[in-house]
């Protein structure tokens, strides 16, 4: 087992954990971007270049932007009362549930005899991926495209302030 993967994984998990425990939302989002980039690095290490770049392009490039916009658009006004801290009861319950699920998963993973073939990664060129997408999975690709379009429109409709009109002197 090589150190690079370990480093990547540690960075990934640590940044994710810290990010989600921060109170400052902007910092949380930025740190989470780091963990997403770490995920991309992991893909790269695993030899899935295309997926890695797609991950960076989508998450670091787009999703983080959307999150930041959302954060800034939903910032509480300075007059609002500061939100109460999360009750320990719920945090405790969350930790319990999380640890239960995690323990279960770890047990399952360690308990099952997994095939270990640390050979070369399956040779997969971008051309091949393109063939697959356009050939076997063409229908799925189309559906995904439709889904994205609809989601975009829906997001615009949802986020648009009701009853806003262009100012008359806007050219």
């Amino acid at each position: 087992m090589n150190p690079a993967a370990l480093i990547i994984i540690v960075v990934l998990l640590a940044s994710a954990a810290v990010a989600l425990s921060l109170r400052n939302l902007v910092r949380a989002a930025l740190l989470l971007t780091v963990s997403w980039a770490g995920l991309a690095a992991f893909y790269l290490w695993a030899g899935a270049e295309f997926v890695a770049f797609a991950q960076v392009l989508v998450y670091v490039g787009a999703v983080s932007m959307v999150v930041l916009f959302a954060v800034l658009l939903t910032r509480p006004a300075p007059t609002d009362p500061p939100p109460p801290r999360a009750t320990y009861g719920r945090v405790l319950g969350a930790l319990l549930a999380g640890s239960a699920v995690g323990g279960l998963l770890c047990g399952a993973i360690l308990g099952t005899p997994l095939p270990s073939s640390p050979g070369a990664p399956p040779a997969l060129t971008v051309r091949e991926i393109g063939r697959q997408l356009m050939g076997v999975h063409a229908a799925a690709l189309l559906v995904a495209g439709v889904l994205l379009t609809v989601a975009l429109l829906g997001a615009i409709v949802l986020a648009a302030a009701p009853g806003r009109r262009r100012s008359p002197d806007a050219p």
Partner: protein
Amino acid sequence: MTLGVEQIFLVPLLPLVAAAIGSLTPRRGRALAAGSAITAMAGALIVSCLALPGVLAETSAHQVANFDWFDLGAGAVRLGWVLDPLGLLMCLMVSFVGLLIFIFSLGYMHEDDNFTRFFCFLSLFASAMLGLLVANSLLLFFICWELVGLASYLLIGFWFHQPSAAAAAKKAFITTRIGDLGLLLGMVWLYHSTGTLLFYDHGHGVLESSALTALAAQTTIGGLAVSTAIGLLIFCGAVGKSGQFPLHVWLPDAMEGPTPVSALIHAATMVAAGVFLIARVFPLMSADLGVGNAPVHALTVVAFIGALTALMGACIAVAQNDIKRVLAFSTVSQLGYMMLALGVGSWVAAIFHLLTHAFFKALLFLGAGSVIHAAHHEQDIRRLGGLGAKMRLTFLTFVVGMMALAGVPFLFSGFWSKEAILHAAHDWNVSSLPLLMGLTGVGLTAFYMTRLVAETFRGQPRSDAAGHAHESPAVMTVPLLLLAVGSVLLGFLGTPAWPWLQSTLLGHEVERESLFAGGGLMMLSILLVAIGLGAGWALYLRRGRRSESAADPIAAAAPRTFAFLGARMKLDELYGATVIAAADALAALADFCDRRGWDGAVRFVAQLGVFTGLASRDTDEEGLNQGFNAVGERLRGAGRFYSRSQTGETHGYLLTVALAFVVIVVLVAIGGGR
């Protein structure tokens, strides 16, 4: 090129397209509507002319083009087109006269707001009439027939904001409907007994020998031959459409429409339809002549009705003061002549007169329209007068028309066609009464036409409207000129010396006679005409009317008769007193039954229903509801209990999902994955 029967449908189609265009053009699209209408009529005329050579080549044949309209399982309803001299000559006449009238309307309706609507209706009218002329199926004929009725309704009521116009339109429609009912019955009966409605179908049509003999052979109630009964029923339709005696009342009222419409109705399209119908089904009408012991022949009835109408129309026309009403009643009487000719068995003469009459009557109406247009819609001849000097062209053409209608000898077409009718009536061997009536009518016709011309054009103007009149524009006078020429020349197609028309229509050569064959009768009629003209000259022309209120000479002589005639023999009042009163009484009776009789029963049932409803409601509220309420309470309580777990807290749900996942996996693990 010559067109055959396959293309003849173009004749009615073109004006129909024009009507469609007109109906789709906005109100300001005057040029488009009028242009399309006139172009369409010209096109129809051209198509008819192109079809002429093919017809003249063999005049005895009926070219037909039949097709299935829709399938009835056992056999199909078939429609078709026919092309024969009768229909085609009518087509030529209708499209030509119609074209001129359209052009005239350009000037006459110029100020009207609903110009486009007017031309749309006109095109519809013409298209329906043309379709009726080339229809080869009584059903198709009937469809066009009803379309003619509809279009006439729309056009007579064109100025519907005037109550009189609306009433006249309604009257025309309803009166003709009465006749159409007869036609419909006859058609149904015909279909029942022959199984087809095609006129000519290569030996299977209703107008062909096999069917006719069959129809004439079987008899029905009162020993009437079936053909007679059907013929009479069909004749009812003709009576209604072309204003024969019992149902002529709508025709004078139709004057409420714009004058071009009156011209179209009286000359070319509507009233001609009835005559044409009888001429078309003439074989059917005359099928029973062979039957010896028939109580009455269809044609006999036709002849007597025609003669009666001719005489009556002439008499009433004498005493009318409205320029258009005079012409209207003259139309009634001329149609009577045509029916007379049909009745006495010479349908050729009838068609001859129909054609000539179309020309000069259109001429007269358009002349009257020109007068009315010039005199700012003044129609009362007592308030007109002295227009001859101001409107020279209108005057001359109008005189030509008057001469033709009066039957002034040798030069004018009306003379020849009328002579033909009188000859036919003279040769009729059933009775000589119609001939006498017709002759009387001839004299009267000459008389009242003279009166009309004298009152309108001579003397001094008796109202400032007439005083300031001036000649109409060329778009109105040029059609007058063309029609005048036509109403002079058309007569020579059918003179005894050169009976081109007769031989063409009959499909076999008619032997030529000298121009003055049957001289005695001709002398007599000429004499009568002269007397009529002379009397008119003596009474009205020699010393013209002085003032508007001056009494009419005849009125001075025999006031009661004149009043009676002026009131159109009180026929409208008679109908009002009898038919309409009866209808009202019937309606009142029905109303009474409805209110008192049936309604009471209905109310009783309703009360019953209300009572039962109340009863059941009480039982519900007292008995059943208690139980249901109790159950409902339980259910609601349960719902409240369960809904407590529904906190709306997303975290809660998520937590539940996670824990449930854990539990399930644990259970599966304990179960060993099985």
